[in-house]
């Protein structure tokens, strides 16, 4: 008797759950409004390059980015995987609105200050009758190289210190597991070394993020240059294209990004046009990004 009672109550419960599902479906169907897709990428950067994500309105993001020395420089235990030759970029990003973000940063490599702006032009939407398939953002920055000029006897100009980058970020979240991004980029340097070197470098950034577990994702980022690929450093080393492979590890409130890449630079002009490391030659660096967001929005402040 008891068993029958239990069984029948179980069936009833399952039936109720079914019924509830149907009701929910009807609600969703009735309310066919397109909603923006959230969290295409976990951070404002896929690895070193920008993602389509902004930080929210009235939020301040403090970023600490590190890139170690190249793994091939010393025996790994001697400089602890390049730890002794680490470079750093500290940055603050602020969300003026949910769509507009501005930031400043300072890199230890070449003593570069940079200012940047990112604007969400369009958002990918889901659930409506007509959905927009892509997230589109504009990212632009100016970098100021404040290192002493190599030759103080010549007539040096402040404008020679400036370089610019403009990016159109096209991203799509296919599902919870896969997000991809294409980033047409132009980098302009006011002063280059040789007559044959173009001041404008075009690159086509490719990026992707793939879910591994609930709190970790695998990210890949590649920025092949489309022109000026025969450019060399003053010491005669050829520049290479930037390639990074990294992991996002989410730990309540922080996103910790750990990566291997072939560039020491943490701003676009640097890693797109001045990367010298070769993956084939172990010219790879360990690096990590840490970010912490502070809220100045009293209306939605949680804690």
């Amino acid at each position: 008797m008891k068993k029958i009672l239990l069984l029948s109550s179980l069936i009833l419960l399952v039936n109720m759950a079914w019924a509830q599902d149907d009701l929910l479906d009807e609600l969703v169907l009735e309310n066919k409004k397109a909603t923006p897709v959230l969290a295409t990428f976990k951070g404002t950067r896929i690895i070193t390059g920008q993602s389509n994500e902004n930080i929210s309105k009235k939020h301040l993001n403090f970023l600490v980015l590190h890139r170690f020395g190249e793994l091939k420089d010393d025996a790994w235990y001697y400089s602890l995987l390049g730890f002794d030759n680490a470079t750093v970029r500290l940055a603050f990003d602020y969300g003026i609105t949910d769509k507009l973000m501005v930031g400043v940063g300072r890199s230890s490599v070449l003593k570069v200050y940079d200012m940047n702006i990112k604007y969400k032009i369009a958002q990918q939407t889901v659930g409506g009758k007509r959905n927009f398939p892509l997230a589109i953002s504009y990212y632009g920055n100016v970098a100021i190289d404040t290192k002493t000029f190599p030759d103080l006897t010549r007539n040096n100009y402040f404008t020679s210190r400036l370089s610019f980058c403009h990016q159109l970020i096209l991203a799509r979240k296919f599902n919870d597991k896969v997000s991809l991004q294409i980033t047409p980029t132009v980098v302009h340097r006011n002063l280059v070394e040789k007559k044959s070197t173009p001041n404008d470098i075009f690159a086509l950034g490719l990026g992707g993020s793939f879910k591994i577990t609930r709190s970790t994702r695998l990210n890949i980022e590649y920025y092949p240059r489309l022109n000026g690929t025969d450019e060399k450093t003053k010491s005669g080393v050829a520049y290479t294209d930037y390639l990074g492979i990294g992991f996002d590890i989410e730990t309540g409130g922080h996103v910790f990004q750990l990566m291997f890449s072939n560039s020491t630079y943490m701003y676009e002009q640097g890693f797109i046009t001045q990367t010298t490391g070769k993956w084939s030659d172990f010219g790879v660096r360990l690096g990590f990004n840490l970010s912490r967001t502070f809220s100045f929005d009293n209306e939605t402040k949680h804690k």
Partner: protein
Amino acid sequence: MIKKILLATILLSFVVLSGCYYDKEEELYPNSINNTDCNAPLTYNTGIKTLINSNCATSGCHAAGGISPDLSNYTLLKASISSVKFRAIDAKNMPSPAGMSACNITKLDNWIKAGTPE
């Protein structure tokens, strides 16, 4: 209203800062490139000291009180000459990240090959 003004200011500052120039060092400074004899034999006191002091033993780097190794005098430089050769001449990644000019590399390389004369 304030928000809009702030927005406009920020956008405008980016436009203003986008002062684009298309300069080339070869054209801007025609005399300063390749005007010194890179192959002239040097001693520590007749040129290498200046080269090391302006490229390696700068304040906060490989100078006294900076990062190891200290390269601020002849004895110290000679003691670390193999790692200097490796990073500045062979790997070309010191000074970080992109190394010295080709002319300076030749000068330093010739000096090491000549037995690091003082």
